[in-house]
């Protein structure tokens, strides 16, 4: 038995991005960013933003583009 070792925020961002693959990339990134801003806790967003710039993060390009549109996340 194996379990996935993909970090949850990467997996979740990729699952969202998979839904938008047929859309115009710019519009898709905007919608994905809006969705994440509306539903994700700031600590998850902060991790996504941090990983989006890292090579080999495993993030879908749409998720990377969306992360670039997110404002800095502040969490306590």
């Amino acid at each position, binding site marked *: *038995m*194996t*379990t*996935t070792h993909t970090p*949850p925020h990467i*997996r*979740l961002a990729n*699952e*969202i991005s*998979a*839904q938008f*693959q*047929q859309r115009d990339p710019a519009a898709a990134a905007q919608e994905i960013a809006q*969705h994440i801003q*509306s*539903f*994700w*806790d*700031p*600590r*998850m967003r902060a991790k996504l933003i941090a990983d989006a710039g890292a090579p080999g993060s495993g993030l879908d390009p749409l998720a990377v583009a969306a992360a670039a549109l997110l404002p800095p*996340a502040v*969490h*306590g």
Partner: protein
Amino acid sequence: MSLIKEQDYGTPARPGEATVSVEIDGKTVLVPEGTSVMRAAAEAGIDIPKLCATDSLEPFGSCRLCLVDIDGRKGSPASCTTPCTPGMKVRTQTPKLAELRRGVMELYISDHPLDCLTCPTNGDCELQDMAGVVGLREVRYGFDGENHLDLPTDSSNPYFDYDASKCIACSRCVRACDEVQGTFALTLEGRGFATKIAAGAGGSFMESDCVSCGACVQACPTATLQERTVVELGMPTRSVLTTCAYCGVGCSFKAELRGDEVVRMVPYKDGKANEGHSCVKGRFAFGYASHPDRQLKPMVRERITDPWREVEWGEAVEYVGKRMLEIQAGHGAGAIGGITSSRCTNEEVYAVQKMVRAAFGNNNVDTCARVCHSPTGYGLKQTYGTSAGTQDFKSVEKADVILVIGANPTDAHPVFASRIKRRLRQGAKLIVADPRRIDLVRSPHIEAQHHLRLMPGTNVALINAMAHVVVTEGLVDREFVAERCEDFDEWERFISGPEHSPEAVEEITGVPAADVRAATRLYASAPNATIMYGLGVTEHSQGSTMVMGMANLAMATGNIGREGVGVNPLRGQNNVQGSCDMGSFPHELPGYRHVSDDAVRNVFETLWGRTLQSEPGLRIPNMFDAAIDGSFRALFVQGEDIVQSDPNTKHVTAALSAMDLVVVQDLFLNETSKYAHVFLPGTSFLEKDGTFTNAERRINRVRPVMAPKTGKHEWQIVCEIAQAMGYPMKYDDAAQIMDEIAITTPTFAGVSFAKLDQVGSVQWPCNDNAPEGTPIMHIDGFVRGRGRFVDTVYVPTKERSTRKFPLILTTGRILSQYNVGAQTRRTGNSAWHPEDLLEMHPHDAEVRGVRDGDTVSLTSRVGETSLRVKIDDRMPVGVVYTTFHHPVTGANVVTTEHSDWATNCPEYKVTAVEVALRNPTPATAAPAMAE
């Protein structure tokens, strides 16, 4: 309150205006066409003697006790089967009628045990009553003739006895099983004097198809069918009206008591959700509330390996408050959170989310709806503007086509299923989309026109194919779309694409294209077509997409905004709707308003005296992930057993083990409490004071039948924890909490306990235009203004069958058990389902050398469990099915981390697994009620 006895009018009410005038015993009565003389008389305050008639059943005319004289007519017709005609003059009391009735009663009593004083229904027996009413003084035939007095009693059912010696063959039980429940398990066997009631093919009730709904017991006019609790405890002396604590139908019941002991639960005729009907859970399975397993004192322990230590309430509350503050001081305000429960009242849920937001100072509150209907919230809000079903239950009576997708109403929402079945027997057509051949597909007098047996995980491909047929075959309601909707043109271009045609997706869904086309034509061409759906829609990686796909289909065909149509989530637990309404989601305040909305936050900040966070908090799966990475350290769990109910058990227990403080508020020690540091005993529905909101948005009162066995209401404890953390939170009673909900939440405007006591129930939204609620939504316009079409691209789940895990597991419920089984496993219901079984197609079993009853291992890439096999072709080849009612099975040991992309709702319905023979010893299979 004394015992509530609803008036029995003898025959059902007929619809329409009262236009037919008749005169009965000199009184003029105006009734709708088709009304029986018996009912007209009852409405005029004139009771005609009866035995075979009751107003939940169509008239039968067998007992001959209700005879009347009608001017101009020969003989004395039965008033139950005689409809009123204009100008009719009826006499119900004449010397001749009195003699006839006495003669009838003589015959009945000559073959009836004369044990009234020791009979359990003494004082509540219609036969006894009628003997008095007709003035029976002698039985000329004697009691020594041939009789039925030695017939045996069938005690096979765990809740009621069938004493054939007391049966008068009135057929009310048979007709209740047929007309009310729709199971057709009972019959009148034999002819003439040999006539008797038989269950199934003449065996015992337990061996028959009887689903133990209690309709027969309720209909029986004698002690023939009798609750065992009445036999043991005696007749109840008082009633309390309340609401069932099981599924999202939210049936109204009379809790009938002697002193503080519940004798029986009787469905309430005026309850709008159930109209006098019940199921085996609500009717009989209430014994858990007084089960000795209940923990009634708070308990604390420093480490989860320590033994529990019982403490007083004060110590437990102070401990929780102190530890929560310490953890926040060390790890930040966002290091703690709470989970609300759909088994708790609106008021209890509201209190928890308020504690989290105001006292914890964050939005880390989520609810168990996360793992069931959160995609409904997302999908319907995106398309229609609010998170709720569009119809009331009664609306199905106007449906011409019923499309059931991913729901199993006869097992999970049985009382509503009876309404569906009644409508189907009247001629409505049925389409079922489900991998499993659920009972609705084919059962007595019901057969689905189409069973679209799709592969798990392909819902969106199927609904897109249906929508494709609608737009390409000219089935769009263009007028409705033009007037009421937006973004249609873009959606029409999307869905018209050849990749969505039934032929193109046939290989994906496994459903023949011709069937999809035929089913779609049936749905789209009906005057009124309605969609009912369940967790087979939501618990997928595209659960939210599928909800939007169904919303698209209903809009495109104009099936929104009137009776008989709509898109309707069948909510799993009793207060799923309410717990969502009450602001349990980490991104929404009560009334589904986003936490980033300054104006909405200001309403609560002003009232609560605290600044609220404008950022969403953690959802339940996020809480587990954050616990494992160390940023989330304490959790308050209200009334949920997350270890048993949430997916990937190993991940859940790892998260709980990593936390510094886990607080469980529940009736029983459960799988989750094994990882808890504090146990706060909760109250059963019989002790709660509050409201539940059912799947049709109906807010119903939950009235306390007895004082809390724990000494405190759950909301009081929550308030005390908030106070221990330095936040002043106090209510005098639960009614004050509802008052606060009403002034802060526009859709609950004006709702109060007093109003509910006055009108019975209301369906939100309640506002100035609809102070008593809104049964049908989106009549003149959608909540969001125009209904929005959304492109629903099919994206296959990543959970696929492989060579190593070649089967797909899907999970669900069975009639007799409920959720994690904490309640039903502690009742007689386990007689039907003592263990979770793995349903497997004969082909899949044969190639693995598995026989019926064998114990097998069930393995996925995340875990392994074992359970016994039930070989059944209900499942298609390649798909296996089990329930999750028993912790010993732990079905969620094998379910994975995959979830709905939008809401994180787990993908329970698709797990790649392998099954292998573990123990070939065949065991005796238990009778399975749902079969």
